[in-house]
């Protein structure tokens, strides 16, 4: 097994220390950083996504894979920055105004980073204007909104309205999720996508980037 295949396998197995070692080894062997990222780390996380969707893996397995991925990224990221390699896309993410829940949102962040996206995590209880500001300042292509309470779901619609009012709505794809959120609610408020779980969220963001590429703000 070559180093990149072994790296992908270490990610799938959630072996953080091995993933870190193999990342350093691949770089030392002269493998281009972009290949380490795409053929090692992202390839491993893609396997995780497939296994999750066919109920072979569940949330704990996804979590330890993401932890291995982050461990490897700690080695790889400085090299990527120096070589000017761009992320798959830039996603602003946060839990909407009035809502303090962040577990689901954090899982989505892990899966997005595992898919090669750069995330700007605004945390919880995020006001609409803060989303607007982050989209602008980071030139994000996607914004992901989370809500876990029916009482805070309307803040998703408020955020979309704020994006519209600020003139950034057409330049950014919006994806929503959270326990009480449904596809029909996403449609009703005019979001571009809905995901019931973190793995689907990463897939959906990839689709949004592919099918409706957005220009920078």
């Amino acid at each position, binding site marked *: 097994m070559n180093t990149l295949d072994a790296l992908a396998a270490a990610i799938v197995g*959630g072996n953080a220390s091995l993933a870190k070692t193999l990342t350093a080894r691949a770089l030392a062997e002269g493998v281009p950083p972009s290949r380490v990222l795409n053929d090692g780390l992202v390839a491993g996380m893609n396997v995780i996504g497939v296994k999750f969707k066919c109920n072979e*893996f*569940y*949330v*704990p*397995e996804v*979590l*330890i894979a993401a*932890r291995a991925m982050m461990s490897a990224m700690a080695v790889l990221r400085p090299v990527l920055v120096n070589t000017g390699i761009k992320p798959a896309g830039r996603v602003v993410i946060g839990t909407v105004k*009035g*809502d*303090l*829940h*962040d*577990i689901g949102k*954090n*899982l989505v962040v892990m899966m997005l980073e595992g898919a090669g996206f750069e995330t700007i995590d605004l945390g919880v209880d995020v006001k609409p204007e803060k989303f607007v500001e982050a989209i602008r300042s980071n030139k994000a292509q996607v914004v992901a909104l989370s809500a876990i*309470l*029916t*009482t*805070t*779901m309307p803040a998703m619609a408020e955020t979309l309205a704020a994006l519209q009012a600020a003139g950034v709505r057409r330049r950014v794809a919006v994806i929503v999720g959270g326990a*009480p*959120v*449904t596809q029909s*609610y996403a449609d009703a408020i005019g979001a571009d996508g809905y995901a019931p779980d973190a793995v689907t969220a990463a897939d959906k963001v990839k689709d949004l980037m592919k099918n409706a590429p957005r220009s920078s703000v």
Partner: protein
Amino acid sequence: MAGLKDMCSADDMDSATLLEQRSKRILQAVALDRPDRTPVVLEYAGFAARVTGTPLPEFLSSTTKSVQVMIEAFHRVGNADAVDYGSFSPYQLSYIWMSKVRVPGVDLPEEDMYQVAETELMTVEDYDFLLEQGWPSFYRRFMAERVLNDVPAERLPSGQPSVDVLSEWASHGIPVLRDGVVSTPFEFLCGARSLIGFFTDLLTIPDKIEEAMQIIMPHMAPAACRRAKQGGFPAVWVGGWRAAGRLISPSLWERFVWPYFEQLVHEVVDCGLIALLHLDSDWTRDLAYFRALPKGRCILSTDGATDLLKARDLLDGHMCLMGDVGAPMLAFGEPDEVYRYSTELVSRLGPSGFILHSGCDIPLDAKLANVQAMVSAAAG
């Protein structure tokens, strides 16, 4: 509370008779007999404040106030048979989640919803302290030092005058199903470590987790059962939220969830109580296991995520089902839609062994007309 008497549906019948009639209907459903009609049980807290026009901080200020407001809300809805629980303090959530709760008027703006603020209050190293100290000592110190350390004693239920919840409701002819809550060690540890930390632990230090669970387990059911018996409540919650099969693999579930869950249910039932299985998230995959639980002594209460029709297929003639008009439908739907869905539940899951209910709590922002539509699907 002015005018409450006028709103009370007990006008034509004295409270004792009404209480007996409603209780009988529910107990028949639990025992898998055929009641005169499908019973309907309400579960709510914040909704009571909103529907009665009570500011949330006032509603949450004392157990006594919560009981008054919840009873008033019951009458506003009208025609339901019982409530799941009859008093509320947001800090009750802290005790079962081992997490801080943020409360409107205290930590949040007055109009915001109370929420569990889940963070990693328990570290990996704390498992060793737990194993050394034993559960009662560890839990007491953990709650005092890390969870409730910034909550004045007078805000906690234990720092307030006690209320005879069951009698308060009974005087209005309304049965209350449960008082105490028990849950598996899985749920307590998951709340204290936070989901991300605990789910990682399940794979990285499984033997230590198992050891901790075995230390914790003997302390889960006895106090809640004793309290329910003393208070005269018929049921105890056996709760599950993060232990759902939707989230963890069959092998983890079989090792860390089911043996504990099954044991708790037997302990509750052996005390002569009904085990009210309050299950959030999707438990569909593992419903067949529930056939091992005592027949006619449990209520499977789901939140809309578990497939209740599949539950009926697997548990017909074995366990009463309760559900599952979901929070989004009650908040954002229309009465016709709620009535249609509720009627379908009644016709497909009744008439024996079914109780119509919301999926988990009726949300704070549920429309009163929607809740009334749910009730009317069973009560006419």
